[in-house]
């Protein structure tokens, strides 16, 4: 196990290094400067600024400077937010996105499991059809459409929840729902499919024969095995949600990281691009590793690759 973990961590670091390298060189291919007042600066002024920021050096040298900085934990300072360290930017912005992502995931998975199970138990009835239709709608309607509708009807017309802003649990409800409906629909579909298979298997037949109640059969025996395919789904989904959704964050005016990433690219804010990309990638590789480990715990039949070599 230890050997396996060490190997996986080594691959993780290698992956991150490759991501950093590729992103850095691709980023430098983008035309323009990171200066927001570029249009009004003369070429001489731009070249003086470039010298100040070491942007006049060859790209490979800039890359080395960046790597050395990274190794010392220095992610540089943002151009858009002048003098603001990228680490501070990420630290202050990540919390809201992460909280929202986790809440949306819990909301989605919880209700998804319930809906999916209901559909599987009542398979081929109108309940099943209804859940299927709902999950197709949930998956296909973009979350920002839902967000705008929720905001208008629930917050503005009914006035029971805040329209936008960030300041307590009540502010997170609407964005959580808007973000969570996608995973909810996906989870419901996965659970339904998985559970229909499981419910047909022999050991469920045995459980039923033992005289267990319907709930016990589903909860104790069927659900656990139906969850396995879901694990693959949840990991990357959580990272994607935690690292922010630009549109939802904008609609509900949430100080998250999602928009920063997009904006940093359009403004050539090099240190922020690198910082946020590395954060996303690190999150993703960590979650992939975690998923593999959890897999083994949930289902002992699945052995970690290389285990026992």
């Amino acid at each position: 196990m230890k050997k396996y973990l060490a190997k996986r961590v080594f691959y993780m670091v290698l992956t991150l290094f490759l991501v950093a390298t590729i992103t850095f060189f691709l980023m430098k291919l983008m035309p323009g400067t990171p200066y927001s007042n570029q249009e009004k600066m003369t070429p001489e002024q731009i070249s003086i600024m470039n010298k100040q920021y070491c942007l006049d050096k060859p790209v490979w040298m800039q890359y080395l400077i960046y790597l050395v900085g990274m190794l010392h934990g220095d992610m540089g300072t943002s151009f858009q937010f002048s003098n603001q360290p990228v680490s501070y930017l990420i630290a202050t912005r990540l919390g809201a996105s992460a909280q929202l992502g986790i809440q949306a995931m819990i909301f989605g998975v919880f209700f998804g499991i319930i809906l999916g199970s209901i559909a599987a138990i009542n398979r081929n009835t109108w309940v099943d059809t209804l859940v299927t239709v709902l999950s197709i709608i949930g998956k296909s309607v973009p979350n920002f459409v839902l967000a705008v509708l929720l905001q208008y009807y629930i917050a503005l017309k009914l006035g029971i929840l805040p329209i936008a802003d960030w300041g307590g649990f009540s502010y997170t409800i609407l964005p959580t729902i808007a973000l969570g409906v996608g995973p909810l629909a996906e989870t419901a579909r996965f659970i339904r499919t998985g559970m229909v298979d499981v419910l047909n298997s022999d050991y469920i037949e045995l459980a039923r024969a033992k005289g267990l109640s319907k709930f016990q059969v589903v909860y104790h025996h069927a659900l656990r095995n139906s969850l396995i395919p879901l694990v693959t789904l949840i990991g990357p989904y959580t990272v994607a949600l935690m690292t922010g959704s630009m549109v939802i964050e904008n609609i509900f005016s949430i100080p998250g990281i999602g928009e920063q990433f997009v904006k940093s690219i359009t403004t050539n804010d090099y240190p922020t691009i690198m910082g946020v990309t590395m954060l996303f990638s690190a999150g993703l590789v960590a979650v992939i590793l975690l998923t593999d480990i959890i897999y083994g715990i949930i289902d002992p039949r699945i052995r970690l690759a290389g285990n026992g070599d």
Partner: protein
Amino acid sequence: MKLVKVAASGAIVALCALTLGACGSKSSSSTSKQVLNWNETAELPTMDLSTATDTVSFDMLNNTMEGLYRLGKNSKIEPGLATKTKVSSDGLTYTFTLRKGAKWSNGDKVTAKDFVYSWRRTLNPKTNSQYAYLFEGVKNATDIMNGKKSPETAGIKAVGDYKLVVTLDRQIPYLKLLMGFPVFFPQNQKVVEKYGSKYGTASKYMVYDGPFQMTGWTGTNLKWTLKKNTNYWDKKNVKLSAINYKVNKTTTTSYNLYQSGKLDATSLSAEQAKQLKGQTGYTIRKAASTFYFQYNQKNAAFKNKKIRQALSMVVNREQFVKKVLGDGSVPSKGLVSMGLASRNGEDFATAAYQKNGVTYNLSEAKKLWNEGLKELGKTSLEFTLLSDDTDKAKNTTAFIQSAIESNLKGSKINVSNVPFKTRLARTTSGDFDVVISAWGADFSDPISFLDLFTSDNSYNAGKWSNAQYDKLIAASKTTDAGDTAKRWNDLVSAEKILMNDQGVAPLYQQATAWMIKPKVKGVIYNSAGANYNFKNAYISGN
């Protein structure tokens, strides 16, 4: 499908709301108080006036800081820290007498030394100021920016605590106007050095000498407050006790907040503007920003005046701003925006108006196009129209492409919508045929626009050149600089030359539609420089 969605989500929300009980409904009783709730569509990037570049920063600095002057209504200069200004007969030395008793929010006196420190700091190349170029004309400023001289050689000197002497390399007839722009405001050396690299990155790492002081800004959050500065010298004329700023980037959201009474003012999208036009509170804010065709004169086709004229005349600007933009923008009268500067009650744009430079005339356009092609010895002309990749820019290029291709025989346009930074890079390097460029003035003087198109100006990417134009612009800065009437006439004549020759073809002046509650009074808006001045704003009624 939408209904099903709403019903389903409504049920879920109702469930959540039930379990949550009464959280979320907070009472706010700010309406009758002197508190203004204002929306911004972008974050505040910095409060360091040496490195600020964007409108939000400049608006915040304009209301929390103060320089020698403030910009009042119609860009008229109002007293700030200067009580008296003496200009030498050659126009090269300004002596400002400063107000005694003006204080920083930490209690320190505001002195002439604060100005000297601030200017030197901005000019110092190590500060990386992107607006330092506005100092050009101040003695040694250009050399300091370029690292050839030390900041100490700048033409600004403190004589005692309350006298400031500014010396210039050349006359700057609009110097007093510039003094109302935040880059020229003072900075407290003690505070700047105390906070070091943190200075200006959060409201607590700042000190203020203006009507308001900022609280609650962490550097990256989406709300903050400007509260009345009790150390401000003219505090008796500041009526608002606080301005609450919220950043809502989606105008649907900010308009919902406006309707619910949480905001008193919000800008609108073009779609919203079309729907809300004529309603109480609907306000158009024109910016000192002109969008125009810039032709690359290295391309023989665009060296031909008739071709340039034809391309300009074929665009129906009235129809374009109404049907395509719909955000309150207006057709340009010329390069210099309307409402920027006036003399004896006449707007510069009206004085320099050349009808044939910006008017839709289809028959004339067709005639000129055919003549132009003949002169070039061609029967057709294919070129690239470069522009940004925003929705607005794409709609613009689509409209123009259709207007040109369907009316001018033999024309073929390849539209190239690229990201802003790419558009700038391609324009600067001359890699374009025709580009839709935009320019926003930093200060309310026509030179802010007209300077761009002198032959040697680095922004003149199309390389249009006219000796008479160059001469007039030069005269406005030298021989006629001290004579307001002559200078005005020089600039008017210069713009007429530019328009008649179609060096550039102005399309429209940008504007933004706002909803502002009628109870909000006394807000001063200027199209150039820092836009909003809330010093004398107040709330009246509900």
